[in-house]
């Protein structure tokens, strides 16, 4: 290996780490909505307070997670001796595809899975790098496609029944107090998110450092990697992803506090069950399913199926779309150092373009009208006769 390629490797690793942290940031603000769309929609938490709590819990969660993925793709790509070597170039291209797709779906306000975007990006890059044989189709179907159908359906059913139960037991005048419960259930979703999602980026960075020879093969992520990932996901979460919060909290269905509580309880229960009983489900898809389920569960609530359909289409095309973006990036990266630099320049251009486009119609925390506490009807006090 010549000296110039060693420099290239260092440059490449630095770029991959930068992009991985950027992906972590988009992961954070894409997924704020999973936990905080419903409490913001019902007014249980003020928008800024909600994203603040979510950010802190993601930060804490990231430090709490100790297990980091052993493979980047979780078996999707045949890694190692028998399959493809996942090079830093491939990871770079995969990350670019995932980041750009995450930002595009954010622009459209679609709650799509960040993990799927990352997997899709890696698949696209691996196909360009090593052909379709690099992909394990069976794993793709059994770990990604079928769970993607089952996750929203499960959450929908659970949230539907939980909502029915809540409305059957309580009377109207106490239902505003579900807001207190919402604070706890939505916090649990945030904490679970932090322990799950930050470690994906930690895994990407650690495995890149291992591939480049900067770390031993069985090394644990260094502390600076954990800290950087935790800060990136927390900052992303605090940035808020208001467009997606609006879609989940306002556009799908009108949410009352009892529904918000039921939906968050269903999301938490489904995610915790799935992560501990060996059937992984996507948090984003579970959270969206819960909102639809709770919309179906309350009499008089309407689910806007047009919005639900748009979300479903977003899920369908996430893997192919981020894969296609990453495939283009991988083809460019294959040209050498200048290809890689051009890749990153194009990615930065795309990110800036999407950001500027988003300023045409801004959605911020001010978008959310908050029902004031005490607005619910109290029985009038009788006037004392003189």
């Amino acid at each position, binding site marked *: 290996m010549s000296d110039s390629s060693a420099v290239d490797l260092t440059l490449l690793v630095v770029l991959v780490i930068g992009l991985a942290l950027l992906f972590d940031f988009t992961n954070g603000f894409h997924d704020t909505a999973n936990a905080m769309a419903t409490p913001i929609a019902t007014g249980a938490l003020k928008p800024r307070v909600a994203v603040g709590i979510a950010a802190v819990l993601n930060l804490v969660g990231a430090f*709490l997670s100790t297990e980091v993925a052993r493979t980047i793709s979780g078996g999707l790509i045949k890694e190692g001796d028998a399959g493809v070597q996942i090079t830093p170039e491939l990871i770079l291209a995969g990350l670019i595809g995932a980041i750009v797709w995450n930002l595009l779906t954010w622009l459209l306000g679609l709650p799509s899975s960040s993990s799927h975007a990352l997997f899709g990006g890696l698949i696209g890059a691996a196909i360009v790098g090593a052909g379709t044989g690099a992909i394990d189709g069976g794993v793709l179907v059994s770990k990604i496609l079928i769970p993607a159908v089952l996750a929203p359906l499960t959450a929908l059913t659970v*949230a539907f*029944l*939980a909502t029915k139960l809540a409305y059957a037991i309580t009377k109207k005048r106490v239902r505003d107090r579900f807001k207190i419960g919402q604070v706890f259930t939505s916090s649990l979703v945030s904490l*679970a998110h932090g322990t799950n999602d930050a470690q994906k980026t930690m895994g990407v960075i650690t495995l890149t450092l291992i591939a480049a020879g900067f770390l031993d093969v069985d090394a644990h992520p260094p502390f600076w990697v954990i800290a950087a990932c935790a800060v990136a996901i927390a900052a992303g979460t605090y940035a808020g992803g208001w467009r997606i919060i609006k879609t989940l909290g306002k556009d799908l269905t009108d949410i009352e506090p009892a529904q918000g509580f*039921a939906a968050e309880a269903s999301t938490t229960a489904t995610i*915790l069950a799935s992560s501990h009983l060996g*059937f992984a489900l996507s948090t984003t898809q579970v959270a969206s399913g819960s909102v639809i389920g709770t919309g179906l569960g309350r009499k008089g609530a309407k689910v806007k199926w047009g919005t639900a359909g748009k979300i479903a289409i977003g899920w369908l095309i996430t893997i192919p779309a981020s894969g296609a973006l990453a495939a283009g990036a991988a083809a460019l990266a294959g040209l050498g150092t200048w290809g890689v630099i051009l890749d990153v320049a194009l990615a930065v251009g795309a990110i800036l373009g999407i950001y500027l486009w988003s300023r045409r119609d801004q959605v911020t925390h001010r978008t959310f009208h908050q029902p004031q506490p005490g607005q619910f009807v109290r029985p009038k006090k009788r006037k004392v006769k003189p």
Partner: protein
Amino acid sequence: MTINWLAFVTVVVVALIGACGIVGLFSLGLRVGDSEVPVRRVAAVALYVLCGAIVLFGIWLIVPFFH
């Protein structure tokens, strides 16, 4: 391609029990506590404490350090 349907069904059942459990307890707490009678107030607090215990169990499940 193998799909662990048993695991999936277990997830659905456990999620249903968990979600309906906490929603049911909290709702009951609200219903029972909506009164001036001290006994009902105490019962409501007990139900909220149960909810709190479930939340703590949730935290225990989330934090890998504990298991």
